[in-house]
């Protein structure tokens, strides 16, 4: 993998709309055959990256490479990349067959080849019997499948998906997530998926880029990003988090809420101010005597497989707890957690420094 050239590479890519900076010095490299996700809130620049790859937008500066070739100014129709648009963008004047056949026909394939291609793609998305349907006769989920088939019919090296599932209901979205993953594995091409739904990103991706304010905040496997968020934004955006202020007394010893705790982080300056993250599912309720922290239960709601509990410690910090057993509102209880559940985030640490530090103390 190491010596293989990335299929898509961004080097210091900048883009502004008027006075608004949309992308700020973006560097990224995508390997062929993987499922990538660009994750971030709306306006974070994730769709903009997609449009730069597809050629709908042009970068102000920086390099965009496709298999090592500069493609900054290559028109959209010449790129070996296809897009599944957010609202599908199916041509309303054509039926399902003609929509999927659009690209193959333009390539000048023969009638039989076009038919074969369309039929293959439609059966890939499980719409084999729908080729004569009009677009407005299809449900949202079916339109979605046609859009995927249409993009794939062009044999792209990279498939770009711009929040394609956001218009579907919960159940359908879950099914489509699995199916997209299956299709990607079967075809073995690169998928770049844009979403603001962290759950979706964690479930589908090989690799995630978390974006905010036109900057890539952190990238890594879903596990990396969930377990070791680099900063407040990522911790808050990915999953639910309890974030409190703390001080690193020394390596493997952190001080917060008036107490010292043993943890597994190192490499900071002594007495450095940090933020401490503990995930709600890592906290357990216990007796006051056994508790590492003592809190008062404020609110509780049943969520099916757990209780979502809000509690407050004596310093006034709020704690979200996902507990298997219920509690009583107003009751004082103890909270317990393991040293490895404590995640430390430094202020203003860049992704490179973060990675370097992790590597250093893990050796």
């Amino acid at each position, binding site marked *: 993998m190491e010596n293989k050239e990335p299929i898509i590479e961004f080097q210091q890519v900048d883009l502004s709309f008027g006075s608004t900076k949309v992308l700020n010095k973006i560097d990224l490299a995508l390997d062929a055959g993987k499922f990538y996700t660009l994750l971030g809130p709306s306006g974070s620049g994730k769709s903009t990256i997609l449009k730069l790859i*597809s*050629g*709908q937008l042009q970068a102000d500066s920086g390099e965009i490479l496709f298999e090592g070739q500069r493609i900054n100014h290559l*028109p*959209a*129709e010449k790129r070996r*990349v*296809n*897009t599944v*648009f*957010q*609202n599908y*963008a*199916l*041509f*309303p*004047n054509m039926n399902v067959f003609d929509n999927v056949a*659009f*690209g193959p026909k*333009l*390539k000048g394939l023969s009638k039989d080849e076009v038919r074969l291609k369309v039929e293959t793609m439609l059966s890939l998305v499980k719409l084999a019997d729908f080729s004569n349907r009009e677009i407005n006769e299809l449900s949202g989920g079916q339109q979605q499948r046609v859009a995927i088939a*249409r*993009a794939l019919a*062009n044999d792209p090296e990279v498939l770009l998906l711009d929040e394609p599932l956001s218009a579907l209901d919960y159940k359908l979205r879950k099914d489509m997530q699995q199916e997209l993953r299956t299709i990607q594995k079967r075809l073995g091409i690169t998928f770049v998926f844009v979403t603001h739904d962290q759950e979706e990103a964690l479930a589908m991706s090989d690799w995630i880029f978390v974006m905010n304010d036109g900057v890539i905040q952190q990238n890594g496997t879903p596990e990396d990003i969930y377990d070791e968020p680099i900063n407040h934004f990522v911790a808050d955006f990915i999953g639910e988090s309890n974030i409190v202020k703390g001080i690193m007394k020394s390596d493997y010893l952190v001080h917060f809420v008036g107490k010292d705790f043993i943890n597994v982080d190192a490499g900071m300056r002594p007495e450095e101010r940090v933020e401490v993250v503990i995930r709600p599912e890592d906290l357990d309720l216990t007796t006051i005597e056994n508790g590492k922290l003592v809190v008062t239960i404020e609110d509780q709601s049943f969520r099916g497989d757990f209780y979502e509990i809000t509690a407050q410690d004596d310093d006034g910090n709020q704690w979200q707890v996902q507990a298997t057993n219920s509690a009583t509102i107003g009751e004082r209880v103890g909270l317990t957690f393991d040293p490895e559940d404590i995640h430390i985030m430094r202020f203003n640490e860049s992704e490179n420094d973060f990675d370097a530090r992790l590597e250093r103390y893990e050796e």
Partner: protein
Amino acid sequence: MLVNKNKFSFTRLTFYSTYGLWLLLFVIAPLMLLLWQSLVGSDGHLTLQNYQTFFVSGTYLTMAFNSVWYAFIITAVTLLISYPAAYIINSLKYKQFWLLLIILPTWINLLLKTYAFIGILAKTGPINQLAESLGLGTHQLLFSDWSFIIVAAYIEIPFMILPIFNSLTDIDPVLEQASRDLGANRWQTLKNVIWPLSLPGVKSGIQAVFIPSLSLFMVTRLIGGNRVITLGTAIEQHFLVTQNWQFGSTIGVVLIIAMVITMLLTREK
């Protein structure tokens, strides 16, 4: 409910009768009278004689054919000029403003614009002066087929651009991006995606230009002289000059039929 029933139905009655009276007196009655006139012979009896005269005489058939032919050319010229214009305007940043500029001339009295062309196309007008200075000589531009077609097209262009522009604006710009994304260049996108989707606008544009072009008579008289005779000039001739209302009405009915056929051909599915 505490609604005062009497008052309510009184309002309702006034509304229905006001609008109904207009429909009856000014829409239905005049058309019926026109039809009735066309069926009255010179002796005052009901007859199909007028229609017989129209369809048997070569003169009137030729005139009707010419009228349709001119209207066709005017419509084609207008469409050819207007579609690219509408397409370009739709791609501009301040498109509503540019559209307004296209439309502005339509608010200027038609007579005045036609009158301007009399000056422009005259023997000593600017066009002939330009031709003269280029060594092309002076030509009789007024009272020719082409001057009539040019002036008519000039007048009709905004009426063609507007509906086409409206249907182009309604097309989701993402469709254009999708087409490019799937490998179509700009021309292929225009041909396969944009043009089919803008057809409703083209059709209503054709409707808005073809029907009035059939019946132009003022432009015909002032610019075309007596070279060009359309259904419109013929009707005016019979009503206001020769006072043969029966035959004028007959031509009117033929014009209405031509209009209905045009509308059926260009109606939306």
